[in-house]
């Protein structure tokens, strides 16, 4: 097995163009497990740990450009107020050791339906910056996940960064696991309020072949809130709206029975999580005094 260790993004892209079968590795929290269990024997590993451009985040206008290898720990510590939903999801990843090594770039590269940050990326309209020697593509998260562990990257592309809108609006992430820490999601829900767009983003994880947006739930809630003027003059939400939102999130799922939980449980739990995250987000919105604007 070749071990390629570029020290710049340009070198990394050249290497990836030369050897498109090379598997990128940063924290190694997924790739090393596959290697250790002999589930995967790529002809080459492309080590991104020396590529400094990938390990920084910057403010770019209204967005954070989050380098692909910025660790979950740094997201929690440094970006908690600007990317609250992502930080909440990062907090649920693995153990402290895993959070020190793992990154959103790795989550995207693996494209597991159970990856913790995916629903947040979908709900917050994140955009994946894919780069190659041919140039840069900006891929909306909603177009990134193609199938179980399949994503929209071309063979010669690397994930350089993810662009997420900076927000002070409420975001929530909640994940069911059968242990109180260090557990893979049985199912998860992310919710983001976009008052400036008069819209709600909602997405679910670990309950379909890919992470996915709950489009009908988003449309229903966005319409409810917009039609009743709630963005400028928010009032407590009627229970019927919260319940309907939960139902629609659950209906967006296509869960299976597996060793972590039953399909029926996943649908049930998604509805509960959707109701609760909406309650929490809306309470935050009310508390923030948006009615006075």
């Amino acid at each position: 097995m070749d071990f390629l260790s570029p020290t710049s993004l340009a070198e990394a892209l050249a290497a990836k163009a030369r050897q498109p079968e090379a598997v990128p590795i940063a924290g190694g929290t997924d790739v090393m497990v596959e290697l250790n269990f002999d589930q995967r024997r790529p002809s080459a590993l492309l080590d991104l740990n020396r590529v400094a451009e990938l390990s920084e985040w910057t403010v770019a206008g209204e967005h954070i450009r989050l380098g692909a290898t910025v660790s979950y720990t740094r997201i929690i510590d440094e970006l908690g107020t600007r990317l609250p939903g992502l930080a909440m999801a990062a907090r649920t990843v693995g153990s402290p050791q895993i959070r020190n090594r793992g990154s959103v770039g790795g989550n995207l590269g693996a494209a597991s339906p159970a990856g913790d940050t995916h629903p947040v990326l979908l709900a917050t309209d994140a955009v994946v910056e894919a780069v190659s020697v041919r140039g840069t593509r900006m891929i909306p998260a909603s177009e990134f996940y193609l199938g179980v562990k399949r994503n929209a990257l071309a063979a010669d592309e690397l994930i350089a960064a993810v662009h997420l809108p900076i927000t002070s609006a409420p975001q929530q992430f909640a994940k069911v696991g059968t242990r109180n820490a260090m557990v893979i999601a049985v199912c998860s829900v992310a919710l983001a309020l976009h008052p400036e767009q008069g819209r709600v983003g909602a997405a679910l994880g670990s309950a379909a072949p890919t992470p996915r947006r709950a489009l009908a739930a988003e449309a229903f809630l966005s319409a409810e809130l917009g039609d009743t003027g709630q963005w400028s003059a928010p009032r407590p939400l009627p229970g019927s709206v919260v319940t309907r939102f939960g139902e629609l999130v659950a209906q967006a799922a296509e869960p299976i029975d597996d060793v972590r939980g039953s399909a029926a449980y996943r649908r049930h739990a998604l509805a509960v999580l959707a109701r609760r995250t909406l309650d929490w987000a809306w309470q935050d919105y009310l508390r923030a005094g948006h009615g006075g604007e």
Partner: protein
Amino acid sequence: MTNPSNPSNPSRTRDTALSAPARVPTELTTSVPGGVGSSPHRPDAALKVRGEFAFASDLWHEDMVWGVTLRSPHPHALIRSIDITDALTVPGVRAVLTHTDVPGTNRYGLERPDQPVLAEDVVRYQGEPVALVAADHPETARRAMRRIAVDYQVLDPVVDAEAVVAGAAPLLHPGGNIVRHQPIRRGDPDATAPVVVRGTYRVGMQDQAFLGPESGLAVPAPDGGVDLYVATQWLHVDQRQVAIALGLPVDRVRLTLSGVGGAFGGREDLSMQVHACLLALYTGRPVKMVYNRQESFYGHVHRHPATLRYEHGADRDGRLVYVRAEIFLDGGAYASSTPAVVANAATLGVGPYEVPNVAVDCWGVYTNNPPCGAMRGFGAVQAAFAYESQMDRLAEAVGVGPVEIRLRNAMRRGSTLPTGQVVDSAAPVAELLRRVAAKPLPPPVDPAEVDLRQLPGGVANTTHGEGVVRGVGYGVGIKNICFSEGFDDFSTARVRVEAVGGEVAATVHTAACEVGQGLVTVLQQIVRTELGVRRVSVLPMDTSIGDAGSTSASRQTYMTGGAVRAASHAVRDRLLAMAAAELGATATDLVLAGGAVLSTRDGAAVDLAALLGADAVERTAEWRHRATEAVDPVTGQGNAHVQYGFAAHRAVVDVDTELGLVRVVELACAQDVGRAMNPQAVLGQIQGGSAQGLGLAVMEEIQISAGRIRNPSFTDYLIPTVLDMPPMRIDVLELADEHAPYGLRGVGEPPTISSTPAIVAAIRAATGLALTRVPVRPEHITGT
């Protein structure tokens, strides 16, 4: 079949002696104060904390090659043929072996030799070893392994233990599919009672989940034998089985314990022991084998899954009139220790209660599920979940609380068990329950200051208090300590005292396996107490000394502690005799203290180092507990057990009733340990045992479907984390057992037994659900 083109040298003699491995188990020495009843630092503590302790997976030899195991992908199949030709062509391969290469008897087993070292014409479980490969690199060995062609004729697996008892399964072993049926009959089999509660309970398959995978290093010896460095629980039983399989005299198979990363029963059976030795003898090279985590799930036995049907009859005050039960234990493909597990579940099947009329039937059977055997609690765990669930049902039927129903039926010293055995030492069941019940309850979670870590779901942010209901539950259990049913249970210890650099030093040598529990510390403490010597070394455990028995059944402090005490007494007697001659005194007027012999008559003293000079005093003792007897195969009557251990738990849980997620808020435990030999280690055992019981209650299960393991990894076989295991309130009672050394009572297993039913009772209290199966899954609570 034979291996005509095998590149290895099949000769089992060697021209040159191999050096010892580069990393070997070393002597553990501490020179600190700390006798019996104190908590000195473990001699291996600093090494382990610094990551410097050599576990068996760290063993290394300059000349070694690597062994791997080809395992059956099928739970049940006939083997039509095995073709190793292609595997032998892989460069770097040293040997490819099948059952025809087993030079001795191709059978082993703890209680009956029913398991092949390598499968012959049939495989009986998924993961059964079929062939071995040795190669210069583990990767090479694995590649070659995949090129072994095994032609299987797949058969339907037998997976239902109750169906086996009913006779509705094809024969899996020549002697029949029932490994053991043990009835217990006491009093009137047709007794009736005004209050009757019934229930059927199920226990899933729990794994020991030790952190250090199976591993060892076999080094061929110039005498045609083999030296095996291995992580195990019982060196001598391994030695006997390995020798039989290799066709060697026992003295040609020498074992040394290597660093053990936990055991909990899962290392009682052989795993890679014979395999590594076979490869070493065939290749003439040291062979290292290390399972990875996934292979480990296939490579050791698990806790028997169980179905338990119970009927309790009581008077209107809740006093038990009768218990009738049928217990079905799924032993999987091979017997392992199933007969003894059956005995425990049967003889302890009504729990720590006085019951005048008992009819229990317990079966352990063969299926094509993964083999099951020893695990902490050993049959008592399964029974306790059922009888404690029944006691709660009875409390409800009678209209009293869960503590009160248990107090009204609690056994005590002098009680007669269903086997007819009279309990002749402390049995403070009622006091243990009163103590946990009297402890203050933890405060409710304050919704104004929510810390997610304090809520069900933890940091995954599933609730801020919504749907959360608190519940409290109780459990109490009973466990036999040491080996039972007439087994000749003994341990051997050698103690040596000499002067080293002008300081008196003692050395302890046994074959008792330190598996992480801290036995090495306790043995040092005993020597310090008995000989007044501060510097004590524990030699590596090996088979050059006599058998110590297994590190299981909560017995090692009792048994090897007893043997070390006996050997120390023999050394003491010799030292006092020497000093008496030196001082012109009578030995009975002399005592050992502070590295000297002191006269209690006139205060005269002689320093031990000076007394010994260049001489050493060394004594070996073989020590037995009082004898037990087999139970009657028809009535189950007999004095089967040496000693009983008891623990009680109170569990407080918060349940998110909408999501079915549980957080155990607090566990309170009271346990009688007779004598706390090392109080800190006792607390560690109680915490660890309780945690293992918590795991069974809410998350730990090897999920099996049609004989196949669905979750052979720590990704999906979940064990409690620090956020799952709550703080504990622990009361340790020390009611001396006059039959045991220092009055001690085995500690390790009782807390595992009672924490599971206490936690499930608490979840029931929070949800109102029946919850008859462990582990309780979220779906069981939400009904989805």
